[in-house]
């Protein structure tokens, strides 16, 4: 039986939404009572004959500071797309909820609808607290949705979630090690275009810029000779070389998709 709290979160229908057979829930889970930090989630259950048989998949976008509802849910893997005038929704033929129950989480507090009552929280967020709050969210969310306890569970995400996902996976792993019958049944994770290692990511990124003819040979040489990428802080020469590339060689492209039109 669904908990009362769960029923309170049920979405009857979104404005302009087409008729669907799967259930949806959304709402807040408090992750830090004293600071009034609460994370917002949106669950789109599996569009299958019995969602109870399908795994649960948590999706996180990166940034840091970007919303899984703005990107993951609304333009990537969610069941709906928003039309140009934002007056109605239409179905995504390749929605991932055709295979699984998809849980979108706006994380950390300050992203999207997720909020904090302590405004200083917005100026000292970081990997550690984000992972800690996300684990707290999961434990409390699974109390509200006990039908998902012990269910096959996967994490997924892209970009800076290349940090969030493995860090949360590690937290879950350590939490489970200290509990005899762990209810967060993590089986694995999948990440796309994931921020992984500052040094190697940067070297590989500059190689991509050069091999895809976005930057000149001389700029490639000046970046590779002045940038060590051994710390998050770049030297002035390195900064100058990269800024030159961005300002004079890249041109007006969509860096996130270099062969499609850029958005003016």
């Amino acid at each position: 039986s669904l908990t009362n709290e769960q029923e309170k979160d049920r979405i009857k229908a979104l404005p302009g939404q087409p008729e669907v057979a799967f259930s949806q829930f959304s709402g807040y889970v408090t992750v830090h009572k004293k600071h009034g930090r609460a994370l917002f989630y949106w669950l789109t259950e599996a569009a299958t004959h019995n969602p109870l048989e399908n795994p649960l998949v948590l999706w996180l976008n990166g940034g840091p500071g970007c919303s899984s509802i703005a990107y993951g849910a609304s333009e990537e893997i969610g069941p709906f797309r928003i039309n140009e005038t934002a007056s109605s929704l239409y179905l995504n033929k390749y929605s991932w909820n055709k295979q699984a129950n998809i849980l979108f989480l706006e994380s950390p507090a300050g992203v999207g609808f997720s909020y904090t009552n302590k405004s200083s929280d917005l100026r000292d967020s970081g990997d550690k607290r984000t992972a800690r709050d996300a684990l707290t969210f999961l434990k409390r969310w699974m109390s509200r949705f006990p039908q998902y306890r012990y269910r096959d569970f996967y994490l997924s995400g892209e970009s800076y979630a290349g940090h969030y996902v493995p860090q949360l996976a590690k937290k879950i792993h350590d939490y489970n090690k200290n509990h005899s019958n762990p209810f967060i049944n993590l089986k694995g994770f999948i990440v796309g275009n994931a921020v992984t290692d500052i040094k190697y990511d940067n070297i590989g990124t500059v190689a991509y810029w050069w091999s895809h003819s976005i930057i000149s040979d001389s700029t490639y040489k000046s970046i590779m000779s002045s940038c060590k990428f051994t710390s998050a802080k770049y030297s002035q020469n390195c900064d100058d070389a990269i800024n030159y590339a961005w300002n004079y060689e890249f041109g007006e492209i969509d860096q996130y998709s270099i062969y499609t039109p850029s958005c003016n």
Partner: protein
Amino acid sequence: CIENNAEKYYNRPDVQHAMHANSTGISYKWTACSGELLDNWKDSEFSMLPTYKKLIAAGYRIWMFSGDTDSVVPVTATRFSLSHLNLTVKTRWYPWYLNGQVGGWTEVYDGLTFATVRGAGHEVPLLQPQRGFLLFQSFLAGKNLPRS
């Protein structure tokens, strides 16, 4: 410009009501990315590779993929980082197919599967939704991507 649609839709009061969102009356509009969080991000791990090593050793199913037209976290960035895990190759590099077309390339290591998605950018399911869906299906099934 597709994210402009979300900026409009999720700031509609009737949408927020239907989603039980913004119940405390947040003092700022809903937006796709918070500049304040990004500009003030405090701790960020230099490398996730040590965490990957621990999670691979713990036996989790781990897949990484790259849309190959992204220049922000491009496919060569991920491949170069992955190469420093020194994983053993189980199934050598091969093209995977969907509808008779190469959907991308993949290589399976002991403990991790890597795949590219041809013609997709940073947000793979946005530009190559069908290829992204097959990738997800294969991941959930624990099966290698199709060779034909």
